[in-house]
């Protein structure tokens, strides 16, 4: 119990810190460098001309619009879903747990094909919708449906994990105080997991924003209607890589600004609540 007796501990401590720093650097560089590299392939000229391209602009707005609707739908339905699912016992719970993971393992193009086989004009459900003159494929709605299908499991999984890890004492106390499930959900469960939920929402938003395979398969690729940014990027890649890259950078910068703003706003809301 003297100063010298602590030396090996201190040494280990220093090594641990150095190792941690190295790991942080390694992981960060690995994830950031490829993105940074992309910036070298574009020029201010290309950038400006992309920004002036009406197709790019409409793709940008469409992407923002559809991803925003998607994340709203996913959060509004997925959060209570995860809550009920993790708080209740019902027959077939394991099955549900299994089914909602299915979209995760599906290659996106196949996911789009599944949606098309279901909601397409000759699809299992689509043929009945067609009788009423309702068409889903090739509409903006189809873009949103594809994004919701592909991205929502990410949010739901994260929400479930957070709800399950939460100390049950808070919800139990709220119940003794007469709170309805809705009040508990809104007043206790959500605020106590808010940071994690926001993180999950950001992840899901990003997944929706980057969605390509399911969208083009199910919704098609029509500028102004179903051509989101990733589809425009792909079109750009077919012509000249640098144009595709420039559009992608535009997407990255923009979504970044949004994610940051969203996180900032949500944090403030949470701490204010």
């Amino acid at each position, binding site marked *: 119990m003297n100063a010298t007796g602590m030396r090996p501990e201190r040494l280990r401590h220093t090594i641990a810190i150095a190792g941690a720093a190295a790991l942080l650097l390694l992981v960060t560089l690995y994830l950031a460098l490829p993105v940074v590299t992309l910036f070298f392939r574009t020029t201010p000229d290309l950038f400006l001309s992309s920004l002036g391209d009406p197709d790019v602009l409409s793709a940008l707005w469409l992407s923002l619009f559809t991803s925003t609707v998607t994340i709203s739908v996913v959060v509004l339905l997925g959060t209570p879903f995860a809550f009920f699912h993790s708080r209740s016992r019902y027959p077939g719970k394991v099955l549900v747990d299994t089914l909602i993971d299915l979209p995760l393992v599906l290659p996106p193009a196949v996911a789009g094909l599944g949606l098309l086989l279901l909601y397409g004009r000759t699809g299992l459900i689509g043929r009945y919708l067609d009788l009423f003159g309702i068409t889903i494929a090739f509409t903006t709605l189809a873009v949103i449906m594809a994004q919701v299908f592909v991205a929502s499991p990410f949010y739901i999984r994260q929400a479930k994990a957070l709800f399950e890890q939460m100390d049950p004492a808070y919800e139990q106390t709220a119940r*003794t105080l007469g709170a309805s499930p809705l009040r508990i959900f809104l007043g206790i469960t959500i*605020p106590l997991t808010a940071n994690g939920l926001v993180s999950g929402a950001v992840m899901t938003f990003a997944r929706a924003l980057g969605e390509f395979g399911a969208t083009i398969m199910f919704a098609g690729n029509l500028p102004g209607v179903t051509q989101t940014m990733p589809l425009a990027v792909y079109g750009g890649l077919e012509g000249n890589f640098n144009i595709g890259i420039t559009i992608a950078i535009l997407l990255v910068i923009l979504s970044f600004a949004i994610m940051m703003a969203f996180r900032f706003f949500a944090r403030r809301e949470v701490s204010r609540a």
Partner: protein
Amino acid sequence: MLEARVKKILRDFPLDLAITVNPGEILVLMGENGAGKSMTLNMISGIIPPDSGLIRLNGTIFYDPHGGIHIPVEDRRIGYVFQNPAVFPHMTVRENIAFGLRARHTPTSTIAGRVDRWLDTMNLSDLAGVKAGMLSGGQQQRVALARALAPGPVLLMLDEPFNALDARSMQDVKGFLRQYVADEGIPCILVMHRVRDAKDVGDRACILDQGVKVWEGRPGDLPGMYLTQERGHPARQLETRISSLTGIPSSITD
């Protein structure tokens, strides 16, 4: 009046207990760590379902497996403070106390006034706007007490309510509880370990051992040997030993 008979197979022993608490009466529940006190309160509150039994408050059946009745926790109108206060850390002290009032749809106009009264009673007025997660242990305990009492419960159950309270707060809370329970005429169960506290606040005391009641009587009569009994004796033996010392019959039936 609370009439409860609850049975549940626990990990180490079966719990089988019948208790009755009259309106305005404070029943003190004592017993070794792990005897089943908290579990009993959890079952009466509805948080944990018993294996069998019957729970009735003021004539309303809360739990009756034969009738298929299991009133959900949130509809039992109880005030229950857990052994661990579990204040809502993201809410202010004021919001914590108002929570139950809001949940029970108290008219908004009256909420502020009632919360103020409870803030004052629990000496929390200075901390009203502070997030409850940022409080000391004893301050949190007071928030939990105020939060449970504020909605005007029809049954009060406090699990070791004096834990973490400073000397003065403890005195205050003891005095307040006696008064409150008597005024409101509601049944009240308090879990505690100290004979002294039981004598201060209890109308009746009851000792649990491994899930069964081994003694019941006035707190003033609490057997001194309760403090010095040997450990590990099967409940029945202990019961016999207690009854032989206290002169109370060994089987207290419901």
